């Protein structure tokens, strides 16, 4: 690239637009939706934004499908080798788009929470929220929010529509993140995906303080982590003289430079990524943010952020550090075990459902690492599959959680779920199925995914780690079981929460999650095929 830069400094690098079309569509759509925010009258924004974002995701999906049909199996590198559009990238893009679509539906739903889960403006409720004792308690519901009619002018201001451009930008960032072929692109993408997320975390209509606190924590820690990432980038640049993953890989094989730079850089880089993937011990933000953020956003983060983070981690470790994996694998073992242990053990005693799922996601991050660590085609494909499966299940779980409400919003405390099966057998059944999926019981996607990942790990000589992982998944099963016990075997409390009849959007999203969880458990062949379609190219 250096050479190229010197020879023809003025020729723009060739761009394979077909390949990066999905990315462009999403980012472009994000800009358009910003313009909507700016110029549309309020009462039109909500329908317009929803329509736009759905359209954008759909179009991106179509573009992806069209390209995937004709894509070279080996994958290509385009945009001056900044992006690598190969099998895994396409798969991850697809995953992100579908999961993003689901999340958008949850976000867009205004029937569950009158007027939607997002507040007109952070300022508006400040006084209310600041009143003592209202921190986690009810923050006043204005009468005008009670009526559920769509798009009525009187109601328009109550729905905050700037969440849509944010989500679209984040989505675009994620897509760029998993495709990034050099560390700089990756860093920029990282910020592009993170910054909007920081913001949307703080937009909850209910429990303002929790929401804002989540935003602040996420932001500070996120920035902290990206600083590490960046320093790692710098060190690697110093080591390899380039931030291209391939260049690093080649440099790692033969360079006089001290390996201190290489491994120091790797370590810091990985830390940044592990943070995003909420891998213990870099998970500390996860429970708080998951609990504080508006549930649809939590769903979006839990599903998509994990996909993005592990997609990038996969690329970095396999493309840039595949040759040196004997040096770093030991450390990653420790990290994986730590993550599984933290997630499984701490999850046992959680009393808030969202926090519990957060810890479950920490444990799952540990399982995912097994696949990432396996420097084999199976390692890649199994990780990809796992991400897809986990994403859908967890998305649906949060969708269900958002339906169980009482006077002051969602009833996420475990005790409030007691005897739910009696009042809403369907919902309890769905939740049970999803939890069993998270626990990895056969005939759910969770099992297929675990199986794929663990067999990849075992195939790459990590048998002990697999056994440990299985033991921890048994431990983790306990807290999923706790919820089931509560829903089915316990008696209902008097002032139990009510189960809201979900609107079309939420219904679709949850159904999507459940169906995929089931299908991937029973007939995963097709998806497994996609996941194994092509290797990573740098």
């Amino acid at each position, binding site marked *: 690239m250096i050479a190229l830069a010197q020879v023809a400094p003025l020729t723009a690098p060739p761009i394979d637009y077909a390949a990066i079309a999905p990315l462009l569509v999403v980012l472009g759509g994000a800009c358009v939706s910003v313009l909507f925010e700016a110029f549309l009258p309020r009462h039109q924004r909500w329908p317009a934004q929803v329509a736009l974002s759905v359209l954008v995701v759909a179009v991106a999906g179509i573009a992806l499908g069209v390209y995937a049909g004709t894509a070279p199996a080996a994958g290509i590198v385009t945009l001056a080798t900044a992006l690598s559009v190969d099998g895994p990238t396409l798969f991850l893009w697809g995953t992100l788009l579908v999961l993003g679509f689901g999340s958008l539906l949850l976000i867009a739903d205004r029937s569950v929470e009158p007027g939607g889960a997002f507040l007109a403006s952070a300022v508006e409720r400040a006084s209310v929220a600041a009143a003592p004792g209202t921190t986690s308690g009810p923050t006043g519901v204005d009468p005008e929010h009670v009526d559920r009619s769509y798009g009525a002018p009187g109601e328009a201001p109550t729905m905050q529509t700037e969440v849509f451009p944010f989500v679209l930008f984040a989505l675009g960032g994620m897509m760029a993140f998993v495709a990034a072929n050099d560390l700089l692109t990756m860093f920029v993408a990282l910020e592009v995906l993170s910054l909007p997320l920081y913001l949307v975390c*703080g937009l909850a209509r209910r429990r*303002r*303080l929790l929401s804002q606190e989540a935003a602040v924590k996420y932001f500070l820690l996120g920035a*902290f982590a990206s600083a590490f990432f960046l320093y790692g980038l*710098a060190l690697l640049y110093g080591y390899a003289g380039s931030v291209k993953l391939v260049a690093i890989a080649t440099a790692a094989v033969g360079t006089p430079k001290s390996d201190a730079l290489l491994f120091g850089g790797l370590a810091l880089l990985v830390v940044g990524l592990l943070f995003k993937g909420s891998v213990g011990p870099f998970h500390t933000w996860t429970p708080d943010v998951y609990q504080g953020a508006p549930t649809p956003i939590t769903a979006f983060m839990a599903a998509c952020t994990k996909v993005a983070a592990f997609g990038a981690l996969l690329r970095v470790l396999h493309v840039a550090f595949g040759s040196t994996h004997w040096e770093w694998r030991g450390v990653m073992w420790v990290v994986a075990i730590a993550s599984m242990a933290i997630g499984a053990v701490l999850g046992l005693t959680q009393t808030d459902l969202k926090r519990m799922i957060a810890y479950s996601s920490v444990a799952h991050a540990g399982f995912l690492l097994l696949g990432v660590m396996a420097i084999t085609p199976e390692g890649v494909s199994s990780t990809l599959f796992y991400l897809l499966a986990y994403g859908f299940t967890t998305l649906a779980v949060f969708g269900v959680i958002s339906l169980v409400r009482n006077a002051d919003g969602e009833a996420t405390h475990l005790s409030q779920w007691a005897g739910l099966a009696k009042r809403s057998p369907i919902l309890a059944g769905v939740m049970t199925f999803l939890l069993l999926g998270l626990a990895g019981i056969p005939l759910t996607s969770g099992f297929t995914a675990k199986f794929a990942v663990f067999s990849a790990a075992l195939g790459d000589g990590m048998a002990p780690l697999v056994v440990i992982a299985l033991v921890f998944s048994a431990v983790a099963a306990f807290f999923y079981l706790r919820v089931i016990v509560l829903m089915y075997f316990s008696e209902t409390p008097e002032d139990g929460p009510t189960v809201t009849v979900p609107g079309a959007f939420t219904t679709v999203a949850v159904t999507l999650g459940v169906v995929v969880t089931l299908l991937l458990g029973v007939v995963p062949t097709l998806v497994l095929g996609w996941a194994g379609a092509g290797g990573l190219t740098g």
Partner: protein
Amino acid sequence: MSPTNYLLLSALLFTVGAIGVLVRRNAIVVFMCIELMLNAVNLSLVTFARMNGQLDGQVMAFFVMVVAAAEVVVGLAIIMSIFRTRRSSSVDDANLLKY
């Protein structure tokens, strides 16, 4: 003067920033410490560019500045909002979410 010293300096600055994040309570200051870490990285990027005899590192530094600027915008917005609701910018006051 050998560029290695710049590297050491940047490492030092990075550490200072990290420590600052840990010890300071005011959200703004904490955030500034993070900025300090980013700029420490910039320093080392430039130094490496020098050592490798390339421009890439310096280009990257610009990238980083832009990103940092964006981060400032977002960050300040968030901190402002929480300051408004709580009338306090101490990060330790925001600990409703725990355990």
